[in-house]
């Protein structure tokens, strides 16, 4: 924090007229790749389009699967689909809707909208965003393709073992789920890191946290929840895949495992997942309602509180998916209480929107209709949610069509309707034409009516005793009628979607540079004159509704009277501001377009998918290529420091910053949070399985002698110390590299040594990973540690190479800073792991 940060001044930082050639230079820096090379673009608008389009594609595909299921269930004892096909289809429907549509489409809207909304030129890590998209797209297509080769998983989207274990699900289907979904989750986390740092660090000057559009708040909470929720399911998929491939018995009761461990881990992710999907959609509603009502949002403060509270409370109710598993009644009611708690923030939001409508005059546009539909459907879904949160009621409703009705009301009502409203609302910001209101209203009517006809009867079907996930049912009169109605409704709903698609084809004219723009007279910055580079100049924001409260802002921005009207360095740039008060702190140069992110994603997908079909050699070739692509890409980041740059009004900001000022420091911290929650999930698994089967835990005398962990701990600590020394030994200029290289090299050796000692100690003590749950967990801890050690080895090699190339010095040190952060984290994790696996059995 040595750099003086200039205070912001109201008014216009720049004088007119702007110098000649300034605009042309800006356009040149942001020029798009031509024709098919557009796939190499990393610009958020282009990637955002692709992302949204791909997500919609998966929505349609999963929707077709839903229609197939409804056809099968239209009449009793139907033979349209075989049981195996039906089971694959319902598994894929759930999985694709959740992992390939709901989360990605929300993330896509974030990538597409956020920079514009925040007044940034792009997100801080454009290539990471492109990587996240391509990884998702390639992985998703392959995953969906398994349906056509009879390789699709059939264990349900929840994948409960032992049904999904090697014994009861031989074949590749479950592996495709585990590796494919694990991989797509990694892509989601990459996107989340991008969004968090984007929201916190690239807002327009003056856009303090309390002036931030609600949508940005929701994306922040959304991404934060991904950071804590997804690691749990990543760990779960890792455990199950290791069990399937190598027989590590995490879920096998005879060897001390437990099937419920999966359910805990899965739902610790799975419940927040629902809110991960819902919150951004609620954010969209909070943007649409004020615009359509022509009045500022009422209860902004309360809504933000509600968002954060939802984010938190949603982590405390995972057990309510396990009410029927025989857990003690007191525990169930604890989670019943938590489930009630999460209803509170939703209540606040619903009445805040109603208040906003009351404060203004709601225009009945298509977007408004979708919002009204959302309010009705979501409220109903929320109420049935309160019902199933009641323990005794859930004993009856659990795993019946009542639950199917409930969560479709929540998800379709809470997420899909707002999303369609958002498509209609934001289309003008990205299209040369608006979407048709006439078609839009028809689409809404069909979807709203169809949805209720399809899903409302399911409440009754469920209470009439029909369980979920059945491919057929006997000819009970009531069941037959209700199911037929549901099927008709489903097709009505689909016809609404079809009308929407027709509208898209007729009217959507995607563009990056000249959209029709502010047709709704919105208040937030995405309605400025935006181009591929965002606004010509980045405005100073002084209120929550800048376009309403600062008249003429759009013209001023277009004329270049605000910050950064051109390009200072000739490259793509954006302003880095402070996380809370949005003070300009630095000018960040953004990377240009290129192949590495796309290729890295393709090869990463190749690695996972080839591994699934057991082409091990090819998989590793693909993995190495992916790594190479990532290294090429990383080599181009951390650019040479340049002199301070003026962004307007004589305000000069540095073009190179390190430590907490740098955006990459924030990204690394978020990554560490991801890693931390992954490790905590393992700690939970360890303690949980101990409570279930303490008999497989070793007695203190069977433990490895304490000398072993001691040596391992010393080596760990030493490696951290060496990294500190290496930081001191960073060359000022290009000399004195030997000390640095030696320190890093020694640190790598002692880090690897510590892991080796740790693994060897267990091996010599006679623990084996495939014998019992304790052994499996102990080696699992080392396995997680190994992942970090390998990452660090690569990063250390990278740092050494940068140093030898003269690209790492005391001043230009971000690469090392990131390495050191992750290093100390890994050491801390390692020390904690030693304490757990060597200490716990001695005291327990």
């Amino acid at each position, binding site marked *: 924090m040595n750099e*003086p940060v200039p205070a912001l001044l109201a008014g216009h930082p720049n004088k007119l007229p702007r110098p000649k050639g300034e605009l042309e230079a800006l356009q040149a820096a942001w020029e798009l790749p031509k024709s098919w090379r557009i796939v190499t673009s990393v610009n958020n608008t282009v990637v955002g389009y692709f992302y949204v389009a791909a997500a919609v594609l998966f929505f349609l595909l999963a929707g077709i699967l839903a229609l197939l299921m409804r056809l099968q269930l239209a009449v009793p004892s139907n033979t349209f689909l075989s049981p195996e096909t039906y089971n694959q289809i319902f598994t894929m429907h759930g999985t694709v809707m959740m992992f390939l549509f709901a989360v990605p489409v929300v993330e896509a809207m974030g990538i597409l909208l956020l920079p514009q909304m925040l007044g940034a030129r792009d997100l801080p890590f454009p290539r990471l965003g492109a990587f996240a998209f391509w990884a998702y797209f390639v992985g998703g297509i392959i995953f969906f393709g398994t349906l056509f080769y009879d390789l699709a998983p059939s264990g349900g989207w929840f994948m409960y073992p032992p049904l999904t274990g090697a014994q009861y699900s031989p074949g590749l289907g479950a592996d495709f789920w585990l590796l494919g979904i694990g991989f797509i989750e990694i892509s989601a986390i990459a996107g989340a890191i991008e969004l968090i740092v984007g929201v916190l660090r690239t807002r327009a000057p003056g856009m303090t946290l*309390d002036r931030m559009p609600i949508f940005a708040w929701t994306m922040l909470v959304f991404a934060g929840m991904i950071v804590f929720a997804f690691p749990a399911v990543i760990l779960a998929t890792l455990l199950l895949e290791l069990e399937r491939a190598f027989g590590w018995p995490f879920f096998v009761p005879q060897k001390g495992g437990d099937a419920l461990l999966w359910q805990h881990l899965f739902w610790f992710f799975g419940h927040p997942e629902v809110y991960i999907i819902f919150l951004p959609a609620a954010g969209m509603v909070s943007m649409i309602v004020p615009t359509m009502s022509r009045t500022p949002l009422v209860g902004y403060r309360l809504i933000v509180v509600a968002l954060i*509270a939802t984010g938190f409370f949603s982590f405390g109710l995972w057990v309510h998916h396990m009410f029927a598993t025989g857990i*003690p*009644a*007191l525990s169930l*009611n604890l989670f019943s209480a*938590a489930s009630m708690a999460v209803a*509170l923030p939703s209540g606040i939001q619903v009445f805040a929107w109603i208040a906003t409508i009351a404060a203004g005059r709601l225009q009945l546009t298509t977007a408004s209709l979708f919002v009204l539909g959302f309010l009705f459907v979501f409220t109903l879904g929320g109420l049935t949610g309160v019902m199933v949160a009641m323990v005794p009621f859930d004993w009856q409703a659990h795993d019946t069509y009542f639950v199917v009705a409930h969560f479709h009301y929540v998800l379709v009502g809470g997420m899909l309707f707002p999303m369609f409203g958002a498509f209609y609302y934001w289309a003008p910001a990205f299209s040369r034409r608006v979407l048709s209101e006439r078609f839009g209203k028809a689409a809404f009517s069909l979807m709203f009516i169809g949805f209720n006809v399809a899903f409302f009867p399911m409440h009754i079907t469920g209470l009439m005793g029909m369980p979920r996930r059945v491919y057929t049912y006997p000819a009970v009169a009531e069941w037959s009628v209700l199911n037929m109605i549901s099927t008709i409704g489903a097709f009505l709903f689909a016809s609404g979607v079809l009308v929407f698609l027709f509208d898209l084809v007729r009217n959507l004219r995607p563009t990056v540079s000249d959209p029709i723009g502010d047709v709704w007279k919105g208040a937030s910055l995405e309605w400025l004159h935006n181009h591929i580079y965002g606004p010509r100049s980045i405005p100073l924001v002084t209120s929550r509704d800048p376009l309403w409260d600062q008249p003429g802002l759009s013209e001023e921005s277009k004329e270049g009277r605000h910050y950064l009207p051109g390009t200072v360095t000739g490259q793509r740039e954006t302003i880095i501001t402070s996380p*809370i008060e949005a003070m300009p702190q630095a000018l960040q140069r953004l990377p240009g377009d290129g192949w590495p992110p796309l290729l890295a994603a393709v090869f990463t997908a190749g690695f996972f998918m080839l591994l699934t079909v057991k082409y091990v050699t090819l998989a590793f070739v693909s993995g190495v290529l992916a790594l190479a692509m990532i290294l090429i890409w990383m080599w181009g980041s951390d650019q040479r420091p340049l002199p301070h740059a003026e962004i307007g009004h004589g305000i000069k900001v540095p073009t190179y910053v390190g430590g907490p000022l740098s955006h990459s420091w924030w990204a690394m911290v978020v990554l560490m949070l991801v890693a931390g929650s992954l490790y905590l999930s393992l700690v939970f698994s360890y303690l949980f399985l101990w409570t279930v089967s303490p008999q497989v835990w070793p007695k203190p005398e069977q433990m490895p002698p304490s000398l072993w962990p001691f040596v391992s701990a010393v080596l760990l600590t030493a490696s951290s110390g060496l990294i500190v020394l290496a930081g001191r030994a960073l060359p000022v200029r290009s000399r004195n590299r030997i000390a640095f290289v030696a320190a890093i090299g020694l640190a790598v050796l002692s880090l690897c040594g510590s892991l080796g000692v740790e693994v060897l100690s267990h091996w010599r003590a006679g623990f084996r990973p495939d014998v019992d749950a304790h052994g499996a967990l102990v080696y699992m801890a080392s396995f997680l540690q190994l992942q970090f050690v390998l990452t660090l080895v690569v990063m250390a090699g990278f740092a050494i190479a940068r140093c030898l190339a003269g690209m790492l010095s005391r001043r230009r040190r971000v690469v090392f800073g990131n390495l050191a952060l992750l290093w100390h984290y890994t050491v801390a994790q390692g020390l904690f792991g030693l304490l757990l696996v060597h200490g716990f059995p001695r005291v327990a």
Partner: protein
Amino acid sequence: MSAPRTRPFADLLRLFVGPTVWFMHLVLLYGVEALICTPPVGSGRAMLWLGVVATVAALGALVFLAVMPAPRAEGRPSVHTGAAYLHNTSRLLAFLSAVGVIWNALPVALVPVCALAAS
């Protein structure tokens, strides 16, 4: 022209203290019950006492959070409203968390420990 001294990371974290207290309270009660009941070793009284102590402690922490004075705004230009805003928000979150804590305590008072569902 000099910057206000802010610690953005710490300020952001404070936002989460209230809900975290709620989460810890929940996990503590759940964890202790799991330990008592598999295999059943503890008594219902222990659970009840623990519930009372944990709830009082959690509520105390939340009240403290709610009455904690706002960060001083001296030396900050009026355009800097973010930090004060965060403080306010964390107060409200503390309130919501308190409701959650009380709700968590309710079943501890009403449902016998280790009773098995529907048996």
